[in-house]
Each structure stands twice: as C-alpha cells, then as structure tokens.
C-alpha cells in the first residue's frame, strides 16, 4: 500500500522554460535508465527474495524512485509550461508535441516508448542485485551527461540531488549483495541462485 505526500522529495522550482532541455531530461522519466524503470525493477524483484533485509532495501528504494520520477516529471513540466507554437518549432519539440501536447508521457530522449524490457526481474537475488547496482551506475552516468548540458542553476540543483541518490543507492545495493553472499551455503561455490535450488540437470 502506498499513500501520497503532497510535497517533492527535493524542491523543483524552475522559472525559465527550455523545451530543448526538457526533451533530454525526459529520458530519466521513461528512458532505459530512468526512474520509472528503476522503481518497477525494484518493486517487481522484491517478492522472490527470501532475505528480509534485501526485500526492505528493494521496497524502500523502489518507493524513493517513485518520488524521483515525480521530480523528473516536474522538471520536464516546468521547462515546457505554456511554451508557444514558435518556441515549439524553434526547439525541435514539435514531434513530441503533436502526440502529447504538453503532457508527460514516459519515453526516452530518442523517442523510444517506455517498456518493461528496460529491466529484468530474474528471481535470483545475486543476478538481480548485480543488475540493480549496474542500473544505479547507468542512471548516474545519464545524470552526468545531462549536467554537462545544463547551465540553469534551477535545473542543475534537483538534477545534482538525483545524481547523488544514485550513488547512495549503489552503496545500499552493494551491502544487500554482500548480505546475500555472506549467507550462501558453503557448497554453493559459484553463487547459484540461493533462493531457488532444485538440482540442475537431473
């Protein structure tokens, strides 16, 4: 069960619109390394993990990613608020605009629609946690790439906050992976799925 808090995790107050930048930042809403994929990945993976601590990390980080999705969406919304047809044509926003007007729709910067194939939920906590650590790094790299293109401090500030969270989450997933590995059966040398262990090839 979730309940809504009527506030941002970190404030987003952008006064200067910039539809060109919005088309780049939208990737962190619905792109391959975006916040929607992150949240769905962790919240899907948690059911099959038998370790309660790991399930806690997946639940709480998956929940925080929803708040990050709201922040990214707010940035895109404020960067495109009330833009004129002339601004739309001058910024290359027309291809998005024709299908979605000024609404938010999850897609990558290249226009690829959000899809569940952006993430995996494998039922093996080692497989899943290694993916999760990679996902946090990929998102951090994407925020680095965005920050090279941003010169407006009002946009920089929330993006830097989101970038820092990727680093913290990477650390927590690393600890979760260590917890799973510490509890491996000593005969499971190669860390085969500790949560589903019927014999292989029998």
């Amino acid at each position, binding site marked *: 069960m979730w309940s809504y808090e009527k506030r941002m995790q970190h404030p*987003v107050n952008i006064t200067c619109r910039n539809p060109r930048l919005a088309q780049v930042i939208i990737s962190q809403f619905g792109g391959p390394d975006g916040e929607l994929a992150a949240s769905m990945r962790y919240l899907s993976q948690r059911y099959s993990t038998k370790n309660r601590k790991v399930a806690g990390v997946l639940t709480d980080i998956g929940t925080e990613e929803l708040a990050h999705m709201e922040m990214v969406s707010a940035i895109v919304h*404020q960067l495109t608020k009330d833009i004129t047809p002339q601004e739309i044509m001058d910024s290359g926003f027309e291809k998005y605009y024709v299908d979605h007007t000024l609404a938010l729709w999850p897609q990558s910067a290249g226009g690829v629609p959000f899809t569940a194939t952006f993430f995996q939920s494998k039922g093996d906590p080692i497989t899943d946690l290694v993916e999760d650590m990679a996902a946090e790094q990929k998102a951090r790299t994407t925020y680095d790439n965005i920050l090279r293109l941003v010169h407006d401090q009002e946009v920089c500030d929330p993006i830097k906050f989101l970038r820092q969270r990727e680093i913290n989450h990477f650390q927590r997933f690393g600890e979760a992976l260590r917890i799973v590995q510490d509890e491996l059966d000593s005969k499971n040398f190669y860390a085969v799925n500790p949560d589903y262990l019927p014999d292989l090839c029998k």
Partner: protein
Amino acid sequence: MEGVVSRMNVNSRDKLFACITATSFVLDDLRIYLDTHPTDQEALDYWEKVNRVRKEAVEEYTKCYGPIYSYDVNVKNRWTWVDEPWPWEGRC
C-alpha cells in the same frame, strides 16, 4: 503593517516546509541505511531524534497551512486536499 505580517507568515511557512523537506530527507536516507545496518545504535538514536522534529513540523504545517497527507484533512464543511497547489506546480 498587514504586508509585514503576511510576509512574516510566508517566511515562516517556507521555513516550516523546508524543515519538513530536510528532516524527511534525513529519514529517507537513514531508512535504507538501517535496512542493511539494523543494529547501528547511533543511527537508531538519530532516527528517533529527527523523526520527532519532523512529526512536530508536519503537525504545525498541517494546522496552519493545510494537509500534506489526505488522512490529515480537517473535514468540517469542505474537502481542502485539492485547495493548495500541487508540488509539481513550482513557485511561479
């Protein structure tokens, strides 16, 4: 005079809201730390201390400026949940 008072109110409203944002964030970060370090006494004490400050700030803000949680809507003759701006609207 009225201008000064309303400006003071705006300032205290902003301050109270900033306090909620800051304390909530400390708890967001502590929550996932405690998931993997459930017996870190220093972190547990910090959680308790910050959680208390946050609770007071949310109560005060809700009373003076409106609900952050729909559960806290004060229902007399009007549903006030949708009266104040949504968080994505920004300040402008």
